């Protein structure tokens, strides 16, 4: 307990100081000019990665690999290849240039101005406003599960407690000057995750021994998982089996591809001053990303070896079926108290750095994107400040509510839901907006609405994971899904994203181009 209090206090004090320092340095334009107009590549990389990675990756997806095995490493591949290389090189550079040319400051604003459409900006803002709390709740549940295990308090108490800390941080200046804090938070995450990875292999007797022991656990995989396609923790699931579709399309591709449509990440490219900053940041961002997610996904699977050796049970049995408790129970049981306290601080860092980006996006989505553009038709009022706060408070309350009502084992699922929904809704209009001058306003609107509606319909009536939980399909048609395997296991994004691309191209070719002046302005620096 002493370790915990000391570490948390040190962490909070440093975070508050760095927030103040970062804020003070950004309040005047002259400060900005004096700063030399270059951001250190490590700063950019840390900021991006600490916003992208949250407790969800460590607790949620670490737990998922504890159940489905090392196959989750493919998500680490997509994290680096799509989440860093594609995001920076194919999306980031043009986002930066177009963002400056169009004077865009939020992701919905970039899309809205690119297509000369207030509807697009307002609609994008509303999607973020109403669905981002699901992701924010996943982040809070992730850390609350750890607090529940570590301090042995009820989950509701842990959730309420950390939500209060997070709300205080966000409402008392935590969204300002996030640059330095995210570097600090990112550093803690990387160091602790590397220690976690090395220690886990040491607990398993070494790399070879741990992997061999993991492979030998194939014989004790529960029958229910085995019949669904599980072939052991050191093997991929049977191709085409229900588990294969679930792991590949929802857990790996849902998040791995959906990251490109994440508003709180895309907006970071607009704050960069030159392509050079992006180029230099790429290796660092890739290293940070793989150090955290690669370790989390590998350790998640290896927990089975350690739990089985000591308790004669698999990780999911020790966690009594709650996937989100696998990593917390593992760290709490096998690591010294000082490390457990440090791990909690790491989760705080991961949660708070992601929450900053999420609540920033929530606030600006309501005030700048929906209120100013869609309702006031472009006018800016002094009341916008109040509306921003209303958006953030709404986000916090909605997040807390979801945190209480969402079921167990939800962290990775809720994250994949939000990433998938954003991916299907935004990626076609975003990608074509950056590369295809002929794309039209109608094409963008149609693809966004299609991606959004198809995703929701697929969740309500076809994708069994959500349709079963939501119950509407059962109420209307008397069964959990309108389709059978494998369609009922395929993630909504996999269906909705290609439809969105096709709709964008077809509608664009059939409708009038955007004003020449808008297109010329958008592509001015490209």
């Amino acid at each position, binding site marked *: 307990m002493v370790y915990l209090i000391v570490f948390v206090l040190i962490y909070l004090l440093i975070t508050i100081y760095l927030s103040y320092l970062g804020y003070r340095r950004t*309040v*005047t*334009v002259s400060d*900005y*000019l004096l700063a030399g*107009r270059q951001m250190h*590549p490590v700063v950019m990389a840390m900021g991006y990665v600490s916003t992208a990675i949250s407790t969800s990756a460590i607790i949620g997806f670490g737990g998922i690999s504890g159940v489905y*095995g*090392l*196959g989750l*490493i*493919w998500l*680490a*591949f997509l994290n*680096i*290849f799509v989440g*860093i*290389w594609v995001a920076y090189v194919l999306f980031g*550079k043009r986002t930066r240039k177009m*963002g*400056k*040319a169009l*004077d865009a*400051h939020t992701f919905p604003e970039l899309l809205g101005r690119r297509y000369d459409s207030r509807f697009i900006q307002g609609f994008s803002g509303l999607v973020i406003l109403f669905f981002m709390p699901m992701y924010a709740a996943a982040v809070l549940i992730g850390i609350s599960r750890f607090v529940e295990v570590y301090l042995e308090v009820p989950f509701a108490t842990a959730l309420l407690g950390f939500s209060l800390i997070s709300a205080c941080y966000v*409402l008392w200046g935590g*969204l*300002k000057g996030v640059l330095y804090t995210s570097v600090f938070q990112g550093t803690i995450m990387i160091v602790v995750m590397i220690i976690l990875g090395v220690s886990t292999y040491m607990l398993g007797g070494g*790399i*070879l021994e741990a*992997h*061999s022991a*993991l*492979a030998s656990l194939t014989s004790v995989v529960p029958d229910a998982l085995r019949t669904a396609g599980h*072939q052991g923790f*050191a*093997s*991929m699931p049977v191709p085409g089996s229900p588990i294969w579709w679930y792991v590949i399309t929802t857990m790996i591709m849902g998040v791995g591809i959906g990251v490109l449509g994440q508003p709180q990440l895309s907006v970071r490219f607009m704050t960069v*001053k*030159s*392509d*050079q*900053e992006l*180029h*230099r*940041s*790429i*290796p*660092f*961002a*890739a*290293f940070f990303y*793989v150090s955290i997610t*690669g370790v989390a996904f590998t350790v998640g699977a290896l927990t089975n070896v350690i739990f089985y050796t000591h308790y004669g049970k698999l990780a999911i049995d020790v966690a009594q079926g709650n996937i989100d408790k696998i990593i917390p129970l593992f760290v709490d049981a096998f690591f010294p108290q000082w490390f457990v306290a440090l791990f909690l601080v790491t989760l705080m860092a991961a949660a708070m750095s992601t929450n900053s980006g999420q609540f920033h996006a929530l*606030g*600006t989505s309501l005030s700048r994107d929906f209120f100013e553009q869609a309702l006031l038709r472009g006018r800016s009022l002094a009341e*916008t*400040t109040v509306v*921003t706060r209303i958006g*953030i408070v709404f986000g916090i309350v909605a997040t807390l509510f979801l945190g209480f009502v969402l079921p167990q084992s939800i962290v990775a699922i809720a994250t994949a839901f939000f990433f998938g929904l954003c991916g299907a809704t935004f990626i076609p209009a975003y990608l074509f907006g950056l590369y295809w001058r002929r794309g039209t306003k109608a094409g963008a609107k149609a693809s966004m609405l299609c991606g959004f509606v198809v995703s929701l319909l697929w969740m309500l009536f076809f994708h069994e994971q959500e349709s079963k939980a939501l119950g509407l399909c059962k109420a209307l048609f008397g069964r959990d899904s309108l389709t059978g395997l494998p369609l009922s296991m395929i993630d909504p994004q996999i269906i909705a994203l290609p439809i969105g691309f096709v709709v964008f191209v077809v509608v664009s070719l059939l409708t009038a181009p955007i004003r020449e002046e808008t297109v010329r302005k958008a592509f001015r*620096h490209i």
Partner: protein
Amino acid sequence: MLGIADLGILLGYLFTALAFLLCLFYGVMKWKKGYDEKDGDYREEIKWEREEIELIERLP
């Protein structure tokens, strides 16, 4: 290899390593590129930065 027999898992680790190397080499190769400024870019950037600061000011 390394105690893992499944090709799918090994390829996953291999591709992760290759993706990291791609990022590493890309960053190193382009280390000095991309600093060119265009006419008006500087003024535009100041305008953008002013607005960004106003946006930050509106946050709690």
